[in-house]
C-alpha cells in the first residue's frame, strides 16, 4: 500500500483508497496514474467539443495574414498588409468609436436603470412582488425579435408609438433611418432587452443584505442617499461588477440588433466592428481583410475582462472580509 503514497486531502476518496483493506471497499485501489488522469478524462469530451470550434479561431490569425477571398480559389501570404490597411483606414477608427459608444450608452443606461428599478422592487408591496416575476420577460426575447417588435411599434403607418408621437405633434422622428437618432434607437432596444439582467442581479444582492446596519443607520437619522452611498453600494459592489462585466463584454460585440434594424446604416452611422467585419467578409467577400477587425476586438475584450474579473475578486474579498 505504501506505493500509493500519502492520502491527498484535495482528492476525494484518496483517503478511502488507502484505508485498511478490511473496509468494504473496491478490492483494488485505483492506481496513482488513473487517479491523476481521472479529472482530465472526465473533462476530455467537453474539451474536444470546444477545441473543435477553437481551432478555426487560431486559423483565423493565420488567414488575417493572407489575402484570402471568397471570390478566388488561390490566396497568398501578404504579411501585415491587412492589419496596416485597417489601422490606417479612417473608417476603422469610426467603427471603434461606434462600438465604444454603443457599449458605453447601452451598458451605462442598463446599469443606472437596473439599479434604480431594483431598489424600487426591493419593497414588500404587492406591486413589487408581482413585477419581480414579469419584468424579466424582455430578457428572454431574442434581440432580433425584440428589434422586430420595436420596429413594428415605431412603424409610421401601424406603429402605436408613431401614433402617439404624431398626436403630440412630432412627425419627423425617423428612429433607425436618420443618422441623428439611429444610435438612440439601437441602444433603446438593447436597454429594453437587457436592463432586466441588471435588475435580477442587483435585486438578489439587495435582498441578501443584512438588516442590522440599515436599522442602526435609520436610528441615526442618515438620509436615504447617505445610507445608499455608504452602506448599500459597497455591499453590492461585487454584484454590480458581475453585471457590468457581462453587459460590457456582450454589448461590445453586439451584432444582431444593429444588423436587424439598420445593417449598419444609415450610411456608416452604425458600422461597429462586428458589422464592418460582416461587411468585409460577406458583402466584399474579403475574409483576410475582415479578420483583423474581429481579432482586435477580441484582444480588447480579453484584456478588459481580465482586469474586470481581477477587480471583482478583490471587491468580493473586501465585501466579505469586512
Amino acid at each position, binding site marked *: 500500500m505504501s506505493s500509493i503514497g500519502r492520502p491527498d486531502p484535495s482528492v476525494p476518496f484518496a483517503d478511502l483508497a488507502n484505508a485498511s483493506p478490511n473496509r468494504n471497499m473496491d478490492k483494488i485501489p485505483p492506481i496513482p496514474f488513473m487517479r491523476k488522469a481521472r479529472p482530465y478524462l472526465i473533462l476530455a469530451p467537453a474539451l474536444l467539443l470546444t477545441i473543435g470550434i477553437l481551432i*478555426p479561431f487560431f486559423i483565423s490569425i493565420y488567414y488575417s495574414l493572407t489575402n484570402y477571398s471568397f471570390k478566388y480559389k488561390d490566396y497568398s501570404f501578404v504579411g501585415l498588409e491587412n492589419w496596416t490597411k485597417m489601422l490606417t483606414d479612417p473608417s476603422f477608427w469610426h467603427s471603434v468609436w461606434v462600438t465604444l459608444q454603443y457599449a458605453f450608452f447601452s451598458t451605462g443606461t442598463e446599469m443606472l436603470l437596473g439599479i*434604480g428599478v431594483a431598489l424600487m422592487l426591493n419593497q414588500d408591496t404587492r406591486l413589487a412582488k408581482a413585477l419581480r416575476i414579469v419584468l424579466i420577460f424582455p430578457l428572454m426575447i431574442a434581440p432580433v425579435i425584440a428589434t422586430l417588435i420595436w420596429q413594428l411599434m415605431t412603424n409610421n403607418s401601424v406603429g402605436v408609438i408613431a401614433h402617439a408621437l404624431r398626436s403630440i405633434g412630432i412627425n419627423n422622428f425617423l428612429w433607425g433611418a436618420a443618422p441623428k437618432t439611429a444610435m438612440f434607437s439601437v441602444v433603446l432596444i438593447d436597454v429594453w432587452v437587457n436592463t432586466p439582467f441588471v435588475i435580477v442581479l442587483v435585486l438578489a444582492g439587495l435582498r441578501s443584505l443584512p438588516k442590522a446596519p440599515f436599522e442602526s443607520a435609520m436610528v441615526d437619522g442618515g438620509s436615504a442617499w447617505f445610507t445608499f452611498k455608504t452602506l448599500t453600494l459597497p455591499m453590492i459592489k461585487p454584484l454590480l461588477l458581475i453585471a457590468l462585466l457581462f453587459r460590457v463584454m456582450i454589448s461590445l460585440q453586439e451584432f444582431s440588433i444593429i444588423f436587424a434594424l439598420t445593417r449598419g446604416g444609415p450610411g456608416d452611422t452604425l458600422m461597429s466592428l462586428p458589422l464592418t467585419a460582416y461587411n468585409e467578409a460577406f458583402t466584399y467577400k474579403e475574409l483576410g481583410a475582415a479578420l483583423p477587425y474581429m481579432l482586435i476586438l477580441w484582444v480588447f475584450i480579453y484584456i478588459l475582462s481580465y482586469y474586470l474579473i481581477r477587480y471583482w475578486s478583490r471587491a468580493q474579498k473586501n465585501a466579505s472580509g469586512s
Partner: protein
Amino acid sequence: MGNTNPIAKILKNSALLLYALFALFPLFWMLLISFKHDREMFNTIFVFNPTLENYRVLFSTGEYIGYFMNNVFVSVGAVLLSLAVGVPAAYALARFDFRGKEDLAFTFLSFRFAPEMLVILPLFLIYQKIGLYDTAFGLIWVFQLISLPFIIWILRGYFEDISPEIEHAARVDGYSWWRVFLKINMPLIKPGMVAAALLSFIFVWNNFTFTLLLAGQGVVTTTVASLKYISSDTVHYGQMAAAVTIAALPEVLLALLIQKHLVRGLSMGAVKG
C-alpha cells in the same frame, strides 16, 4: 428599505409603473395586433374585431412550423449534447484538484465572451469544406459555445454545494464511484441542472448570428425567418406579430419555470442568489 414618507412612496411606485409600462407594453401590444386583421391594421389602435386569421395564414403553409421545429431540434440537440459532456466536466471542476483547473474553467467561461463573428468567419470556410455548412449538426456543434459555458459554470457551483462527506459515506458503504455519482449527486443537482438546461435552451433558441451565417436554406430557424418579414415588400404586420408571438412564447413560459434559479443561472454561478 424603511422609507416612510408617503410622497416618496408614491413617486417610487409611479416610477416603477413607468418602467413596467416600458418593459411590458411592447409584448402586450405585439400579442394584441397578432389578433388584428390586416384590414383594420391602419385605422384602429386598441379597439378592433379580434381574429385568428394571422395565425391561420402563418400555419397554413407549414413553412413557419418547419422553422419552429428546426429551432426546437437544434436547441434541444445543443442542450442535450452540452449536458452529456458538461455535467461530468462540471463535476470534475468542482470535486477534483488538478493542475490547470482554473485555467480550464476560465477557458470554458471565455467562450461566453468570444465575439460570435470571430468564430463565424473561419467556421464559415471550414464548415463548407467539411460539409457541415447548413446542417443541423453544424449548428448544434457551434451552439456549444453558448450552452456549454452555462451548463459547466452553473452546475459546478451546485456540485460544490454538495458536501463531499455524503459521497465519502456512500463510498464507505461500498457503492462504486459511478453509482455514487448517479444515485447521490444527480438527484441533488437535478433542480440546478434543469434550470441550467432551460436557461441555455433559451439563449440557444434566441441565437441569430450563428444561424444566419452558418446555415442557409436547409436549417432556417424562427429568429432568422423573422428577418424575412422585415425585408419583404408586402408587409403583413399581423402575420409578423403572430410569428413574433410564437417565437417569444416558449421562452417567456420557460422563464417562469426557472424563477428560483435565475440569478445563479444568469450570472453563471458567480452569484449564489
